């Protein structure tokens, strides 16, 4: 699975410009699903199975998009000013490298200032190595993502865009391993999650499922002087109880926990005090539905070096397969 993860995280696909990720995913899953279509906003929707008497219509969502930068102005010397796509943090940028969709590379610089606190985005610029505006390979409206290769450190995998390519990988691998299911499963590789869960909003409306599950990263509390959070790398995938945007249906929490226990898989319970996932908008689509989220614990989210534990990832695949293989009784 590591090669799949590497290909996914090294693909540039910021919110609104997900084509390259979409094409890669489509190739990976084409032989494993019954039907694929791309909807009006660019969500890739793959159906596997048909609803049977013991099954439900289930929507799974992992987002293809990552955070990035978009050029607002190229000055006469070729320096590009920018604004952000999604939750980019200013302190992650100076000195970092970015890759534009047309292949151009850039380094992020900042105006000189004497204060200790980090610059605002308005004081930064991207240096693409050109000497003036005419020679610049970038112009107003071009988009870029962090430039970092995938790397392994023992059991730990590090790359940019683990959020949420690792969730995408889990879904792809689940589709590979899932032999049979009583359910009609819609795997949605969603767009524009990072700018407000927009792809999942419309995909949920279009599919109108009975149950929704998101697969996304979550934070941990296991680094020095960290936030107080009972989730750690290496202790298994997390069953989300709540986050900054949603409360999981308790019956769903039970179902996911019991399934993990029956399958003897490690898992953690997650309460995240900030952030949210595609599950939030699935929950209030149309007349609403029970939702949950299977989370991959991740350190340094939204930085260029997001870190997950490979064991957690493999256990997430196993747990997802177990969840989808049998009828669901929410009691």
């Amino acid at each position, binding site marked *: 699975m590591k090669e799949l993860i590497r290909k996914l995280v090294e693909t540039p696909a910021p*919110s609104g*410009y997900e084509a390259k990720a979409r094409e890669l995913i489509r190739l990976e899953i084409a032989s494993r699903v019954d039907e694929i279509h791309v*909807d009006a*906003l660019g969500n890739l929707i793959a159906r596997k199975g048909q609803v049977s008497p013991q099954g439900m219509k289930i929507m799974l969502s992992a987002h293809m998009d990552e955070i990035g930068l*978009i050029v*607002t102005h190229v000055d006469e010397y070729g320096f590009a000013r920018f*604004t952000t796509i999604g939750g980019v943090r200013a302190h992650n940028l100076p000195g970092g490298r970015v890759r534009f969709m047309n292949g151009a590379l850039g380094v992020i610089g900042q105006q000189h200032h004497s204060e200790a606190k980090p610059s605002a985005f308005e004081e930064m610029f991207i240096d693409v190595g050109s000497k003036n505006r005419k020679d610049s390979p970038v112009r*107003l409206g071009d988009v870029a993502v962090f430039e970092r290769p995938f790397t392994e450190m023992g059991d730990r995998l590090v790359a940019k865009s683990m959020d949420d390519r690792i969730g995408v990988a889990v879904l792809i691998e689940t589709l590979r391993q899932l032999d049979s299911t009583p359910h009609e499963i819609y795997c949605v590789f969603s767009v524009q999650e990072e*700018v407000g869960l927009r792809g999942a909003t419309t995909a949920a*409306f279009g599919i109108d499922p009975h149950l929704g599950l998101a697969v996304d990263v979550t934070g941990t509390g296991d680094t020095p002087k960290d936030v107080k959070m009972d989730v750690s790398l290496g202790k298994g995938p997390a069953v989300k109880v709540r986050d900054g945007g949603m409360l999981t249906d308790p019956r769903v929490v039970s179902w996911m926990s019991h399934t993990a226990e029956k399958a003897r898989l490690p898992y953690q319970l997650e309460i995240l005090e900030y952030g949210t996932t595609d599950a939030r908008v699935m929950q209030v689509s149309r007349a609403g539905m029970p939702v949950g989220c299977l989370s991959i614990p991740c350190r340094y989210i939204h930085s260029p070096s997001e870190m997950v534990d490979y064991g957690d990832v493999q256990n997430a695949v196993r747990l997802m397969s177990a969840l989808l293989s049998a009828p669901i009784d929410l009691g």
Partner: protein
Amino acid sequence: MNNVPTIANVQMKLLERLTNACAVSGDENEVRQIVLDQIRPIVDEARVDALGNVLATKRGQGENRLRVLLAAHMDEVGFIITHNDDSSFFRFETVGGIDARYLAGKPVLVGKEHIPGVIGAKPVHLTSSDERRQSITVDALRIDVGPGNGSKVKTGDRATFATSFTRLGPSLRAKALDDRLGVATLIELVRHAPANIDLLAAFTVQEEVGLRGAGVAAYAFDPDLAIILDSTPAHDLPAWDASENTRYNTRLGAGPAIYVADRGTLYDTRLVRHLVETAEAGGIPYQIRQPGGGGTDAGAVHKQRAGIPSVSVSVPGRYPHTPAGVARLSDWKNTLALVHAALARLEPRLLSPDDKS
């Protein structure tokens, strides 16, 4: 009628009527009536929905027609009377985003009867220099309709700036150019709707207070794609230290502004490309609105139902949400020309997923 639309005296007079009319978010009737009078005779269907949106359909001819939603918002930012303080002085609040620094010393029109009033300010002689370094808050201001007129105004009445439309050489100066320019443009596009599409026109309400009308209009129409006609600021003023202004958003005179990204929407790249190609093929000047903050009705429209590919095009305007905005007549003409040409060149295969990038 399929001839190419133009801006002549008739259109200028209509824009004058539209900008001088008073229609604050939630109370859009004065503009709604003008719109209905203009479009009822030239569409197949027109109705007013539960929020007050005007929804009109002009069907095209031929098979496999795209259903295209065009939207412009009828409402403007303004004020609402909250309390009668004392005979002719009224407390008020703003409706929609207004910078309170624009309010002191301005005339207003109150209520359906357009009762004239003024937002006064303390005489400068009675202020201290410290006081003049503080902004005047809305809370400290009152609308004054003159002694003896207090009974003509009641709590809940809306009020707007009282600026009248006028030409300034190559430019126009008026209140509510955001978005009466869009409304006027949409009326002309309906008048000259090309035959290759079903044109679904939505004159929306309550854009300024949360895009509320546009969402339900899009849900009702369920179109194949949407083009939003709003107004976007031009911050193309000089910097205080003569440094380069890198955050101008758009520039007056540089043509219709095509959006790629704002705070509410990442615009469909196929539609952006279609507009750019149309402009270049037709020799129509255009500019790309700088990505960043702000938003249009597209923010609500593109997320409706199972998603609606959307793009926004604006006539750039300086000083929106103030007593007097300034726009260039040439930008208006070119916006109308661009959108009309883009509609006429629309084909269903534009929306094929293979092209989505």
